[in-house]
């Protein structure tokens, strides 16, 4: 896990034009109640559609050479944000400007044709990603070498194991020399040796000044790779700052919500026990109550600790006048 220690990061010019500019982007998904409704939506707008707000007025500017982590729980809009950056999906409002070629380590095997050989697939994938034939020829050897497929490179991809397919996909995506690299927990490729190789490759790419966007549930790997991170919740971008701080903010906010939820549950249980009439069975509630209380204490301790850590961090970093790019939280 030490691949990213002592990494030579490139100097980021904060006055330059952003390479990715997300300006007040909103995105809603319409959830259709049935297949019939989806069919009729072809011709007219559905009457009372269920709407899921995936992105809610998100603003983000990323400059060339930066490495930015996205933090947040499942369903917070991270993937949708990445999809708008890679150009797969389109925002309802606002604009997304990307000044460069994006390579996404999201869907590594997307676009492969199972009946074609690995080598043919390098070309196919290259064309799909928008490369010229000369460019593909140039990277062909590097890709084959990196993927470690040996004689299998001239066999149909359907005969590959899933690990081999992912390796080939990874090799193509990192060798096309992108301007922006989007990584969605794709470092978990193949065995330990290959994993280390992938991490080294990503490190090399980052040292060459490529902008990196990284999504992971593993906070320590985000801290390792990214200097800056943003925290998203329910489609909103709540905090934008140094990775260390964002992680603490994330933990504080998470514990706060957990404590609220836990308190509500305890109140419910207590009410039920208090309202119980003669003969009602409340044994289960009585059993649960101490468990919840114990967790609550644990959370409160955590919260106090994280809050203190955050306070110390901020004191050390900013002194008395904090300056945040985005902070929609009241701590």
């Amino acid at each position, binding site marked *: 896990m030490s691949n990213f220690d002592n990494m030579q990061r490139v100097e980021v010019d904060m006055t330059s034009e952003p390479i990715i500019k997300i300006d007040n982007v909103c995105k809603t998904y319409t959830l259709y109640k049935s*297949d019939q409704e*989806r069919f009729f939506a072809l011709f007219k707008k559905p009457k009372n559609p269920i709407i899921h707000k995936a992105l809610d007025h998100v603003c983000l500017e990323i400059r060339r050479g930066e490495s930015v982590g996205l933090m947040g729980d499942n369903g917070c809009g991270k993937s949708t944000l990445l999809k708008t950056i890679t150009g797969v*999906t389109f925002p309802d409002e606002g604009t997304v400007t990307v000044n460069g070629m994006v390579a996404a380590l999201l869907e590594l095997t997307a676009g492969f044709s199972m009946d074609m050989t690995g080598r*043919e697939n390098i070309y196919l994938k290259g*064309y799909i990603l*928008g490369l010229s034939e000369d460019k593909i020829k140039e990277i062909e050897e590097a890709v084959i070498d990196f993927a470690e497929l040996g004689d299998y490179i001239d066999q*149909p991809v359907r005969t590959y194991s899933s690990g081999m397919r992912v390796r080939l996909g990874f090799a193509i995506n990192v060798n096309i020399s992108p301007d922006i690299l989007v990584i969605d927990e794709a470092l978990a490729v193949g065995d330990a040796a290959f994993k280390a190789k992938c991490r080294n490759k990503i490190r090399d790419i980052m040292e060459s000044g490529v902008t990196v966007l990284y999504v992971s549930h593993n906070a320590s790997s985000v801290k390792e790779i990214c200097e800056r991170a943003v925290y998203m919740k329910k489609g909103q971008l709540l905090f934008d700052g140094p990775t260390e701080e964002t992680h603490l903010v994330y933990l504080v906010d998470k514990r706060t919500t957990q404590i609220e939820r836990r308190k509500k549950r305890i109140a419910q249980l207590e009410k039920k026990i208090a309202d119980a009439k003669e003969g009602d069975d409340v044994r289960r509630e009585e059993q649960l109550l101490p468990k919840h209380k114990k967790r609550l204490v644990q959370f409160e301790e955590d919260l106090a600790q994280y809050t203190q850590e955050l306070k110390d961090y901020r004191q050390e970093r900013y002194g008395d006048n904090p300056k945040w790019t985005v902070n929609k939280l009241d701590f």
Partner: protein
Amino acid sequence: MIIVFLRDIINEHKSFGKRIFVLAKTELVKTYKGAAIGPLWAVVKPAFTLFVYWFAFTIGIKKLGHVDVEIHNHVLSFDRFLFMLVGFIPWFFISESITKGAKDIRSHRQYVTKINFPVSTIMTFTSLSRIYVHLALSMIMYVIVAFMWGTSWYNLQIFFYMPLMFLFFLFLSWSTAPMCAFSPDLENAITSIMSGIFWLTGVIYNSYDLPAPLDKIMLFNPINFFVNGYRNSFLYNRFFFEFKTEFFIFLAEFIALFILGVFNYNRLRKKIPDVL
């Protein structure tokens, strides 16, 4: 408005340029890869279909060995096989284009939902791969026609009809493919009416030679325009503009389909990745 809409499609194609042709080739390779006789299937399948119909009509129903067609007030008599052959060659392309064209986006869903890809080019390169097959079949047809009927300058009209046919069904897929991506219902509907469309088109019989008002109604079927157009070029020795009613009805349909296609594609393009 239509110009603005069309600009998106043109830009998507511009950015892709030569790669469209490479992807069309890949599409062909994908279709026939893994089979021992590979691309020969592109010929075997239609040849067998043609044989079966010919067998049914000439051997089975003995009276139908010849077709009489009135052109320029002369009655020309064609061997049923030759007449059917020239009708079937465009039909194979048309039926493939309608059914597969509707599925284009759905069958290439990875290109739409996983990567940033100019979606309208999917229809173009799959159509191109189909026209390659069609071109090969047309050449075989031309050899047979040359031996059985002879050649003439009118044959060159194929270079008018073929690109027009390519465009017509490309424009059709601009409407059908995005709609089928939304809901498979349309796809099933198209597959189910295909054999009906076949019998409502003068592939096996002569669509001009029907009792009124059916012969007029048949002019509204654009597929007849192409089937009869191929016969104009190879059998009837007639120019495309000579039968004005047929030509102008087709032209109106062509323009309407084009506008509808551009409109539908642009209306649905941005929603497709979310529903596919």
